[in-house]
């Protein structure tokens, strides 16, 4: 099959989103099944793309309208993008199903539309090869995320959304200024060409441009102290949306930051930016872990935990070494699985028991054994217990961190991880050894999804070889800029 069909990963959700009102006009009940169907189709396409990229070991370059870059906009679906587009699609599919159970607030058609656009935005951010296109997708993601945060129509949700909007807005404005500067200096928006030209532009312009791009993305990537919106948004958003935030929306921001960072290696202040990012990432981990410690609401607690894990990924990506990027990507994959599982489990508890405070989790082992088991596995994995997946990526990050000379950073992150262990283990104790109650019936399909994620965690935990090889290839995709540039068939312009 022609690689250009890969454009469907963008086209399908976009077109389907516009079709939602039509579907609604036909039958209101058909909206959610339609959503499920679209996400399933997206899984199929993403699976095909993944297979194509990993068997041929070459990226798929989609050229919009047949124009070769840098004249036309291109998508660059390399090893990283192929892997993550698949993850996005699979998680979205699961969440589409979960939404049927979890989201009862009307208007569902708007929800479905925003859901698809959120998925589209994240997919686009990861797949695009054009920096302005990246901005567009980032805005699509962000705006749908603001709307979805407020979707529950409670006061809290509105407030959280408002905060998110203000901070996100500031972030993306600066991002846009960064693009403008880079464009002004290089005359191109194509990422591969920017990489080629980055060494030749006026150093001041380049460094300001890079710093602003990273600043803008850091808001989306939840880096301290730009992540203040995140706990509120995570808590207020509908449960399936929280899963998506944690599993891939934030990852898209991280990826974009890492991609731009490595593309612009030639900028003279590159190492200072890296160092600043490392500092921010370490602080993210420390502050978020401590914030989670006495949290009474489990959903919020896991939100903090998610932020801290994201900080760890950012730390790894900002190390500036191949080992660090590989480890960071590996952690991204693991974190996506684990946090999807945790937020899914916690969200399901929220629906069934009407709340997600710590008290609601007492005796969960007796009331909802399957969900309790899933949350337990997720928690243990998040703590970094061996034979669960995160153990491997965490070890990788620590080794890479010290090798890159950030012993203090690793020490602080490890110290914060002790705090993480405490609150997760307290939760586990509460689930299994405190309180009790009547057994409730649990949804079979959601149980199957949770068990699938649990199985993934354990398989990677016991035998990480395959996942690690994927992460290595995807990491090389980000780190090896020369190959990135050579893969894009630029018309003979520029250097």
């Amino acid at each position, binding site marked *: 099959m022609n690689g250009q069909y890969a454009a469907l990963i963008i086209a399908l959700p976009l077109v389907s989103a516009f079709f939602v009102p039509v579907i609604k006009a036909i039958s209101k009940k058909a909206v959610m099944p339609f959503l499920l169907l679209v996400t399933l189709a997206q899984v199929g396409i993403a699976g095909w793309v993944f297979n194509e990229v990993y068997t041929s070991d070459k990226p798929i370059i989609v050229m919009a309208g047949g124009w070769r870059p840098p004249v036309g906009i291109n998508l660059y679906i390399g090893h990283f993008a192929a892997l993550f587009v698949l993850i996005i699609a699979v998680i979205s599919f699961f969440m589409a199903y979960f939404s049927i159970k979890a989201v009862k607030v009307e208007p569902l058609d708007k929800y479905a539309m925003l859901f698809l656009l959120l998925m589209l935005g994240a997919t686009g951010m990861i797949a695009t090869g054009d920096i302005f296109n990246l901005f567009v997708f980032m805005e699509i993601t962000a705006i749908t995320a603001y709307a979805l945060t407020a979707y529950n129509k409670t006061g809290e949700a509105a407030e959280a959304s408002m905060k998110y909007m203000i*901070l996100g807005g*500031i972030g993306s404005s600066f991002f846009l200024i960064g693009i403008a500067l880079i464009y002004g200096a290089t005359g191109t928006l194509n990422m591969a060409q920017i990489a080629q030209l980055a060494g030749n532009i006026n150093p001041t312009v380049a460094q300001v441009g890079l710093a602003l791009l990273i600043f803008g993305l850091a808001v989306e990537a939840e880096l301290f102290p730009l992540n203040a919106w995140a706990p509120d948004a995570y808590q207020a958003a509908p449960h399936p949306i929280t899963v998506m935030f944690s599993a891939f929306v934030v990852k898209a921001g991280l990826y974009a930051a890492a991609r731009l960072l490595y593309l612009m290696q030639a900028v003279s202040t590159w190492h200072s930016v890296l160092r600043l990012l490392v500092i921010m990432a370490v602080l993210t981990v420390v502050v978020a872990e401590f914030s989670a410690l006495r949290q009474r609401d489990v959903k919020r607690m896991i939100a903090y935990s998610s932020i801290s894990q994201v900080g760890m990924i950012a730390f790894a990506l900002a190390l500036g070494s191949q080992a660090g990027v590989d480890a960071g990507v590996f952690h991204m994959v693991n974190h996506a699985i684990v946090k999807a599982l945790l937020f899914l489990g916690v969200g399901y508890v929220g629906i069934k028991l009407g709340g997600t405070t710590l008290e609601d989790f007492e005796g969960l082992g007796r009331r909802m054994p399957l969900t309790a088991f899933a949350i337990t596995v997720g928690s243990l994995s998040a703590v970094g217990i061996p034979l669960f997946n995160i153990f491997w990526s965490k070890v990788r990050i620590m*080794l890479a961190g*010290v090798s890159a000379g950030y012993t203090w950073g690793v020490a602080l992150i490890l110290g914060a991880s002790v*705090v993480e262990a405490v609150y997760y*283990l307290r939760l586990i104790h509460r689930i299994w050894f405190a309180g009790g109650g009547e057994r409730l019936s649990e949804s079979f399909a959601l149980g199957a999804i949770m068990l699938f994620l649990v199985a993934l965690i354990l398989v990677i935990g016991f035998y990480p*070889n395959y996942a690690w090889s994927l992460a290595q290839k995807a990491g090389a995709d980000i780190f090896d800029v020369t190959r990135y540039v050579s893969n894009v068939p630029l018309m003979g312009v520029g250097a």
Partner: protein
Amino acid sequence: MINDLMILIFAPLVAGILAWAFDVRGIREAIGFIGAAIPVVILAKTYQTVLSNSINYTITVGGFKLIFQLTALNWYFAAVAAIVGIAMALGMISTSRSGYEWLFALMSYTGVLGVFLSQDFIGFFLLWELMTFASFMMVLRNNRHESLKYFVLSVIGAYAMMLGIAILYAKTGALDFATIRQALYMDLSIGAISKGESALLFVLFLTAFGVKAGAFPLHVWAPGAYSEANQSYTSFFSGALSKAGVYGILLLYILMGAKLYAEFGTFHGHLTFAYVIAWIGAITVVVASFLAVLQEDIRKLFAYSSVGQVGYILLAFGVGTSLGFAGGLFHVLSHAVFKGLFWLVTAAIILQTGKTKFKDMGGLAEKMPFTFAMGLIAVLSLSGIPPMAGFASKWLIYEAAIQAHMPLVAGAIFLGSGLAFAYVVRFLYAVWFGQRPSDLDNVKEAPLPLLIGMAILAIPNILFGVAPGLVTEYINKAFGSEIVGGDYFKLVTPTGTYNALLVTIVLVLGLAIAGLVFLYGATTRKIPVTNTYQSGNPVIEDYNLSIRRNFYKPLAEALDFWLKYSWDRFYERIAGIAEDFADTLRQSFYNGNVQSYSWYLAIVLLILALWGVL
């Protein structure tokens, strides 16, 4: 041979998972027992092989090369763990009713074996964490606070180790022991690792292994964790799992000994770094033994005692001579068998009486004669009375300390032995003899599996006591030099000779004569056990000291000044401060005010500008 090592390490884990999955009475126990027995069989099978050459197995997992190796030295550790492991399984058949406990008990068994067999830091760390986690889960079930204390300290230790591993990796580019050892040796002349970094590495690894071994002042988790787990499991926890820490210290010598010696030289004729370890061991022995004496709960007593006994091993390794290592290694074995036995005896007592405090017990010897006999063997061995294994090992450690001219350290051994005698006497008398509370009249002998488990641990106590040469000969072979001379029954060191067989014969003769005197010479008056009284002293309520209650209260009063300071309380306070700090941090940073959030953005921009990147 390839799969043997994998089966050896992972058989208990697999059995544990199966036992947990098929949580049916009978099946669960059978699977668990088989899982615990497989390592014993494999170790027995490989006994001949390991002395001449090692068995290797390498597997690549997640880009890391994990190397497992069965050498003479780690075969010894694994064998000790396996003996205690199978006894634990037998004990658990009697005392455990849950698949959960089987899963985590056997998981920690796998962890311990894996730690001993790993020849690279990733496998070592992985199995170390697995072992910690599994043992934590055993405690979590019963007591959240104690288990978290244990876990937090362990995790701090483990993360210290992780940091150390990462530093070593950054410096040497290797994760396997052989290469790291060589690289550190080469570094003696290159000097890529500075003095400060060597010190940091030493402290990091010492913290990691010290926590597990329960070394002062990181021992505070031990009393709670040991007493709040299923007691059959505690036999393994205290008998084998704590040895992982000891093994780690040995590893520290093997990997970094030369480097640390080169950096820090000697202090009064001793290796400086080893001297630190010796003193940590000595202080642990003294502090823990004093605290053990003062306990009123049988489990707490043995928990502190266990901490103290592992202190002996650290002390022995800290002496830094080959005799010290031999003594320490011997004590690894004897501590495992006598402390394992003690915990099984405790398990039996708790199972049959449901009580844990001395004040509720007494006169059980008549009701549980076999358990009593086992307890007696353990008591004799722990307090270092020949011809038990405990004597032989302590004797070697003592010899080593004297020979190395460490009189103060040797003094700690003596003091510790005296205190050990003080607390076991109390155990012996308060539990087994004296007046029996009326609610214990219907107590029965412990169930058979538990008794078999005890017997498995009691036999080595006597066997290696009478024939200590069996152990020292193996240790000689493992080190490849004649450290302790003599034959099976005789230990010969440069400073002295101990003939266990002779002692045994004399002892048996003496007992026989005493028995004859007792049978034919003495006049006896038979009274019911409920009719003994307090050594003739009247008991007053306001100062009621009996062997069963506040027996060592005068000692506690004398130590009043020291007891005011407690590391445990100190750590609790730090934990409290950390929690409060967490609240403050969250409330001041995530304060919910979007204006301040916007300011954060502005500040970051400002920092970017000041940094010169904007």
